[in-house]
């Protein structure tokens, strides 16, 4: 059951610090939005979201980020950039969504929408380990980890026969360098030099 809480607005309940972080990460200002709703009108994923994109920005304007990350809207964004493209005010909503996902991950860990997160995380692990994506492995591990052993099972043999899933992969000579990039970013975050 989803009960709508009354919004108590005060300087204390409006977490502007969080909004500043979103703005820094996304490089865009939420205050520019005047709520025309054009983003929501064109969003291919809006029907899956409980907060349509314009409302995500509205909640940010009010500093009510918990309401956003408690829900699934940000995890249903397809990053298609339609919203950013058509916004009359140059609000780069797709980047705001990126920032919110990052901050949600940092603040809350896995959410109930963790399928997407899991896929993303596996994808990044893959890069760190192999340097490139290996779809076969990615799909297999995802299915195991998400408990959907049989998902897309029908596709596998067909793809293998067409040479579309490779069982083996080459080692990338830049692996050390890649790992360093990951480590340096982690290091910067530990020191508070980056969000």
């Amino acid at each position: 059951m989803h009960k709508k809480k009354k919004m108590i607005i005060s300087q204390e309940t409006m977490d502007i610090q969080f909004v500043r972080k979103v703005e820094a990460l996304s490089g865009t200002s939420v205050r520019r939005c005047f709520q025309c709703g054009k983003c929501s009108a064109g969003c291919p994923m809006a029907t899956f979201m409980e907060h349509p994109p314009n409302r995500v920005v509205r909640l940010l304007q009010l500093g009510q980020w918990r309401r956003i990350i408690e829900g699934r809207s940000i995890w249903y964004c397809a990053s298609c950039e339609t919203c950013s493209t058509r916004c009359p005010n140059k609000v780069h909503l797709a980047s705001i969504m990126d920032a919110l996902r990052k901050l949600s991950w940092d603040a809350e860990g896995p959410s109930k929408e963790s399928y997407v997160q899991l896929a993303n995380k596996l994808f990044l692990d893959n890069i760190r380990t192999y340097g490139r994506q290996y779809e076969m492995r990615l799909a297999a591990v995802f299915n195991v980890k998400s408990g959907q052993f049989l998902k897309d099972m029908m596709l596998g043999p067909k793809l293998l026969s067409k040479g579309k899933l490779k069982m083996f992969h080459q080692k990338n000579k830049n692996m050390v360098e890649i790992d360093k990039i990951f480590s340096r970013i982690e290091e910067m975050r530990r020191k508070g030099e980056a969000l």
Partner: protein
Amino acid sequence: MSRIGVFVCHCGENISRTVDVERVAAEVGTMPGVAFATDYKYMCSDPGQGLLKKAIQEQKLSHIVVAACSPRMHEKTFRKAAESAGLNPFLCEIANIREHCSWVHENREEATAKAVEIVGMMVERVKKNRVLPTITVPVTKRSLVIGGGIAGIQAALDIADAGHDVVLVEREPSIGGHMAQLSETFPTLDCSQCIMTPKMVDVVNHPKIKLYTYAEVEHVEGYIGNFQITIRKKARSVDEDKCTGCGLCMEKCPVRKIPNQFDCNLGLRPAIYVPFPQAVPNTPVIDREHCIKFKTGKCGLCQKICGPGAVDYEQEDTLIIEPVGAIVVATGFDLYSITEKPKGSSIKGYGEFGHGKIPDVIDGMTFERLASASGPTGGKILRPSDGQEPKQIVFIQCVGSRAREKGISYCSKICCMYTAKHTMLYKHKVHDGQAYVFFMDARVPGKSYDEFWRRAIEDEEAVYIRGMVSRLYQKGNKIVVMGSDISVGVQVEIEADMVVLATAVQPRTGADSLAQKLGISYDHYHFYSEAHAKLRPVECATAGIYLAGTCQGPKDIPDTVSQASAAAAKVMTLFAKDKLEREPIVAKVKEAGCVACFYCKKVCPYGAVEEKEIRDRQGNLIKVVAYVNPGVCGGCGTCQATCPSKSVELDGYTDEQIVAMIEAL
């Protein structure tokens, strides 16, 4: 040697309570150049002024310093008094020892010392003051009005009715402007033609108005009271004096299928045409681009059938010079179009709405022509693509306006009202149809405006949806509108028969080049700038030029007419005197030192600086220098601060005067 008189005012006790005025007078009396110093209870009173006048005459004073309240209070009073005693008013200065001294300090010792210094500074300053004669400029009591839309027509009629000659210049073959294109007007829904046409006829019949249609302002010279306007009268190919307006030529013209711009290209017209039946003047013009005679040299039908022999293929552009004393600019607006714009343009089109390629996506003006009884469909709302009556019609507001990503961030002000009007007109004509409006806010302040908007919703049942539209696309013979309703928080999809876009009001293309000819300023959109947003809303910063209507910013008909009448009143105020008098605080160029770098010209906000050639008696050019037109100079002195060699000087605030004050410290 100067003989300065210093008069220290007590201002009742306002000054003397904290400032020892006697001591001030005594100390100042010993300063070099001071011949007379005294104090008095109320300097601004009649006896006080009498004291001043008497001292000027008896003591043969050459300069005056009155130490009293702020010059903003009584500088004029004392200067007038000095003048009546035979002294040039600009030899009188005020030392402010009230607002800047006695009222803001409590310590008598400190305040008195400060007062002495303030008066001392003014004594040093006044020594360097020069006699400044009042500047008078003659006034030519004729006015130019640029633009023959409702703004220009109103201003021209008002000025002409006051008895002054008016020259009205209109770019198109007929006056009338955008208002002549409208069907019915909000908030009363009276027919635009019915209220507009009589005014147009008044213009052409007015003995004081000289009308130039199909003409443009080519060049402007001069300044307030004394402009010389060069007007280019474009070749009409029809002699206005001979033409009787019978219309036979238009009937016989073999080229018939030229889209008529007046009807937003919905209707067709011949190559020799008047833009609309009620055109003023009712004289046709030949569209040389499409006329067979001009393209191939053959045809010539119109000339053959014209009884009075008015058709003249040889006609050329003519240049006419008109002297005027004031200019009203009323050039109106263009409507934004969603078509694709050239790369790098600051204004962008709407690809998401099809870049204007979907035939049944039209703009508000096109809808006006459809709804107009004299329009191409005779007042029936029909789709341009197939002539069907649209049963589902979608209106989208704020197209172009309030979209900084498209290059325009302002609100166009009129669209909320005209869209509400459109929904009503639609409902009146298509009883079984439904109108939908996508909007953000309804901006409907104004007398009877909100009521009008509510009527559209409550009585005419237009469905207003708060939210914008992301995309429009053709699907079969429908247009799919992908919108959202942010109040509900859902996406909305409507399969519409026709979509009407409330596109932005933009300045005219070429507004900037006209502004440069006139020497007036404009904002970055190219709307003309008024001198002060609140207190001088119809005047340009350039003296003698006034603004009316949408060339200054988006506005509706009532506001436009008010501003036009206000501009006319300003012109009449100017014409009420034979000569213009102005304070002689203006900049002057010292030609000997001027090296013509024209930094003064670059910074002058008034465009008062001109380039002047100095020639010897044989007419050989010796040098070029700057010249400040005293009629135009506003007296800010930015030129002097910028001039590297200080060869331009602002009277009343010369370097000598200022340095004298600094050195007095």
